[in-house]
């Protein structure tokens, strides 16, 4: 099966983990398309997303050396990721090095929906695109791969669509988990390939730590879905129209309640 990867940045841990896991599982991608980390359009988009003040703060936090004990797990996650890579016997630190290591062509683009990128994708004739980030995908791109574009969603579909769904599921006292599904024109509404429940573990000391662990659970689920699709074993479940709810970014005050829910649930499971 001809697989391609779409990535949001050369430094995306998620994209790197998917690429390494797919190669380790014997499903080496035929190419990788990655959005350039620094280019005007990306900076403009980030500015629109974060606002200039948060953008500068974000840039500063990423550029300065990490402070142990002070920075959030996402900032110091490199050690967790380094352990993960070591466990897979790979010594690379970004997508560019990984592509060189595995001999996979890498194409850097400023927008995945550009006509030139679409042309490149069509010429590559993929059966499946694995999405790890890179912005909103327009219908012409979604129509290119024979099987579709696969996404790993950090929530159980069809119930939890949208953003911060781990936090929302915790807050509503429901099961947390991940879903691998095909992307369609809606928000997390495409056919479901597989779902995997996640139980809070003793190491999930915060929502950030849990989210970090869920990234790797999602990567494993994506690789499992690719394996099933390659063997034509995957069952695709169409989502019911109007099923579930779309969630939005959670306010800090509710997030702190969700954090409390995580602690309670973790204590319950570990008791």
């Amino acid at each position, binding site marked *: 099966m001809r697989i391609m990867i779409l990535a949001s940045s050369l430094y995306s841990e998620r994209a790197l983990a998917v690429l390494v896991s797919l190669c380790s599982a014997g499903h080496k991608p035929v190419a990788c398309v990655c959005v350039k980390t620094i280019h005007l359009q990306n900076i403009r988009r980030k500015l*629109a*997303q*974060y*606002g*200039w*003040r*948060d953008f500068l703060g974000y840039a500063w936090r990423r550029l300065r050396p990490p402070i142990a004990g002070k920075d959030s797990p996402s900032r110091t996650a490199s050690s967790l990721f380094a352990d993960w890579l070591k466990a897979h016997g790979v010594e690379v630190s970004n997508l560019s090095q990984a592509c060189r290591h595995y001999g996979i062509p890498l194409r850097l683009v400023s927008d995945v929906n550009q006509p030139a990128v679409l042309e490149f994708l069509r010429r590559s004739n993929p059966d499946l695109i694995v999405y790890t980030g890179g912005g909103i995908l327009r219908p012409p791109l979604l129509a290119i791969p024979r099987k579709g574009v696969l996404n790993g969603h950090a929530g159980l579909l069809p119930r939890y669509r949208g*953003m911060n769904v781990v936090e*929302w599921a915790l*807050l*509503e*006292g429901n099961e947390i988990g991940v879903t691998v599904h095909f992307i369609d024109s809606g928000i997390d509404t495409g056919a479901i390939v597989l779902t995997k429940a996640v139980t809070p573990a003793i190491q999930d000391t915060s929502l950030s730590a849990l989210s970090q662990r869920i990234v790797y659970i999602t990567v494993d689920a994506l690789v499992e879905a690719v394996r099933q699709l390659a063997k034509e074993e995957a069952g695709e479940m169409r989502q019911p129209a109007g099923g579930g*709810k*779309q*969630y*939005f*970014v*959670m*306010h*800090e*005050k*509710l997030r702190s*309640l969700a954090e*409390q*829910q995580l602690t*309670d649930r973790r204590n319950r499971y570990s008791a």
Partner: protein
Amino acid sequence: MTGKKSGRFRRIASELNPLVWPLGALVVLYDSVQLRWRQPPTPYSWAEIGVPTEQSLAFVMRWIAAAQDASPDGGISAYYSLYGGFGPSYPETTGYLIPTLIDYGTVSQDPQWTERAVRATDWLMHLQFDQGAFPAGFAKSTDGPSVFNTGQIIFGLLGTYRLTGNSAYLQAATRAGHWLVSAQSPDGCWRQHTYEGVPHVYYTMVAWAQAELFQATGDDCFQQSAARNLEWALSHQQPNGWFEGYNLGGRPIYLHFIAYTLQGVLEAGIRIGSDAALQAMQQTAEKLLRMFEIKKRLMGAYSSAGKATIGSACLTGDAQISIVWLRLAELTGDLRFLNASLKMNELIKSGIWYRGPTGLLGGVKGSDPVWGRYLWLRYPCWAAKFTADSFMLELSSLAKCAARLSPCGS
């Protein structure tokens, strides 16, 4: 120059106060600079501005107290304008500000707020016409009876009756309610004694008052009055969830009026047990939630097709919509409504003055920026009222949510 514009400048000329307008000019300048440089709300940053809701609430209530102290009669000043200072007492908004004063008295455990509520109610009692109605506008001797004002004053009369147990307030409210029944058309719409002499769909706020009166008196005529008006209003809802029939004489349909309609439908619907009303307004409230979450703000006015028609925000409407979402979160248990209202309240807080002279301190501007079309260059008392209500509801909703989620609460 259009009639409206010349009217605006005539008003400014008549109210211009040399002790007020120089500071007002600085506020306009500050708003311009802030508009240019302030942090835009984004999907990923809902940074709190560092002022807890309790503190913001205290500032807003301080503004309301100042607006009452600025009036010699015990009523609450309609607005603070950047060119003329505090305006005259306004019966309609004084009426519905009374429950806010009483609620804050309970929250703060400070008796001055209930004393203020009684003082404001006593002023309103003097304004009641023999037939039970209350006057339109600023209660000048030439003003005739007004359906909307009478409805909103009923809230105040009932609030003070519950607070003091003095039956005179209940009797006044009942007389007002009976006058409203007599002025209502058989189809439930109010057509006479209305703003500009035409019916308005946002008079569901009057239906809410009638429903409250039914709860207080048990008199079925008030329930029937509320039910008929709700039925009439719901017949104006379009398939896309928006309402028609605001009839604002070509002026924009400000979010304030959209929110009035929703608040009226919701609260009257709850009180008379109308599931149809709740479902109808929930459709519109969800639509507004989605628009707010995606765009990160609501605009100050919308067409009947749901398109924004002005470029500024209407903070009064924002606070009212926040209240609607908080009430829906309580009723349905859907925490997405609570989430959206928390964000909305952060936006409103960011426009409040936490330092400055009386009139500005704790005031909530009509429009954001302050020179927007709705209540141009003014800080209306009803923006402060709905903001205070929204903050109090936020605090109680969050406390209830935390209690429900805590191990002992579950």
